[in-house]
């Protein structure tokens, strides 16, 4: 009997809840694995998938979104060993799970804290509620590969946005493995889409795309590229989270800015009926 041949894994993209190869057919060798090299068209397809998912995800109850994110944290915890085997330190996996749970808890609290009844001089109730902005394009920090990724995805989706993430080009395995976690977490397909490959190829397409509502440039290290992306994003007035400083400590308390930047405020006037 011959020796068993192990099944080697090709790390694929995560678009619309599926794991397709790049439509360009390209891949690149990184972290001793073959990883898909996403093209501009993959970015376009990911935006289409993300847009299609907005209605269901933003329309789900905050409680339901919170439950699904808790479920993702459970799955992440269960795959701890797999991440460690990929070279992610155990502490970082723990921090990522905690970060995920922390954001999940905000799901049904954010609108209480950041919405409210406004005092007006008339017989009206005047109520402001925060709503998701829509599709968010994210350039994930290059490292820490897992904690950085969780720290940019979770705050965007907890409020009902959907995301297209350009993963770290040098450490993409954690991103694809996180996609496998999300795919088994009841998260509807298209809410999170992950592209691996060159930032210089996917990010400009995403920043210029007219059907993207916000960009998070956290992982952009090149100042020139960052400026170019901000200019492109200005074309249709996307909300912009600017690049994180090089010495940014991803394990520190993240605050709420990552969630609140990606929100729109809806204000309703309702007659009091006197």
């Amino acid at each position, binding site marked *: 009997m011959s020796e068993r041949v192990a099944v080697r894994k090709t790390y694929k993209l995560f678009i619309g809840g599926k794991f397709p190869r790049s439509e360009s057919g390209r891949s690149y060798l990184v972290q001793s694995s073959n990883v898909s090299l996403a093209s501009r068209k993959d970015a376009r397809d990911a935006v289409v998938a993300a847009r299609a998912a907005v209605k269901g995800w933003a329309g789900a109850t905050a409680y339901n979104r919170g439950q699904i994110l808790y479920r993702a944290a459970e799955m992440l915890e269960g795959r701890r060993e797999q991440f460690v085997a990929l070279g992610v330190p155990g502490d970082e996996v723990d921090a990522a799970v905690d970060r995920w749970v922390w954001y999940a808890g905000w799901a049904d609290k954010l609108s209480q804290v950041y919405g409210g009844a406004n005092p007006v001089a008339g017989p009206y109730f005047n109520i402001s509620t925060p709503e998701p902005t829509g599709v968010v394009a994210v350039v994930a920090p290059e490292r820490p590969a897992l904690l950085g990724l969780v720290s940019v995805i979770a705050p965007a989706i907890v409020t009902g946005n959907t995301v297209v993430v350009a993963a770290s080009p040098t450490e993409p395995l954690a991103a694809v493995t996180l996609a496998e976690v999300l795919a088994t977490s009841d998260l509807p397909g298209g809410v999170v889409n992950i592209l691996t490959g060159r930032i210089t190829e996917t990010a400009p397409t995403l920043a*210029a*795309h*007219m*059907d*993207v509502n916000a960009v998070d440039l956290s992982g952009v290290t090149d100042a020139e590229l960052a400026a170019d992306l901000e200019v492109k994003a200005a074309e249709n007035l996307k909300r912009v989270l600017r690049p994180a400083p090089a010495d940014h400590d991803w394990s520190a308390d993240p605050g709420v800015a990552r969630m609140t930047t990606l929100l729109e405020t809806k204000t309703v006037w309702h007659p009091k009926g006197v």
Partner: protein
Amino acid sequence: MTATTTSARSELSELGRSETALRTFLHGLPGVDQVGAEQRAAQLGTRSIKTTAKAQAIDLAIRMVDLTTLEGADTPGKVRALAAKAIRPDPADPSCPHVGAVCVYPAMVPYVAEVLRGSGVHLASVATAFPSGQVPLEIKLADTRAAVAAGADEIDMVINRGAFLAGRYKEVYDEIVATREAVGDAHLKVILETGELATYDNVRRASWLAMLGGGDFIKTSTGKVPVAATLPVSLVMLEAVRDFRAATGRQVGVKPAGGIKTTKDAIKYLVMVNETVGADWLDPDWFRFGASSLLNDLLMQRTKLTTGTYSGPDYFTLD
């Protein structure tokens, strides 16, 4: 060639005289190789059309769109808005061509006619008790005359599928001939409703029947049954118009309708037209798309080609 064409033409014009002659002719048409047709259609769908060729294809496809709204909820305001969009599909870009026609129910024709006057966009109206066609002939003809009188210059009629499937070809033929007379100078498009014809052989027979009856266009579907235009069905119809021109010298147009939603789909059809019947049909006078949502996708792709950035549905009208 000319002699045979002339004799073939006179022979074909005799066919409508008797049920037997029609049946013998239609059942004598060679059968369609189902697997072959599907494979051929799938193969033609794999062509890659890029850059300048794509830009040309998109503009041609826009000119070929029959911008359609056939809803019970159509209002004068809604069809006027649609007609305005037909004249200037992309308000931001004056170089964008207008569409081929607007297609509406007969009751909506007067409102559309007002807007389209002098624009070069044709005005198509469905008639003959669209979509089922299950009413007496007099009513179908009255429906048709009313649409023409209101200003439609193209009439989309439905064939009597009940009679066709029951094998009463003469009845179907006579109805097409009667409608042909009723439309006068307007163009007559004959809807075969291929989704209800069940086999490709039936599609080929119905295509010939419609052309023999005097149709200027043959159209796949009403868009009101689950199965609408497909590539193989359109391939069979394109072959039929090619063979019909070879036999009679008269060119007939083809209009796939329903289910064509993306630029990619539209370009597949254009490739198939070019490969099956040739460039003679690559013109809005001879090939049309019956569609509504297709236009927005064409405009988005057009914008992508001209500006280099992907556009979004927020920047085009909802219809």
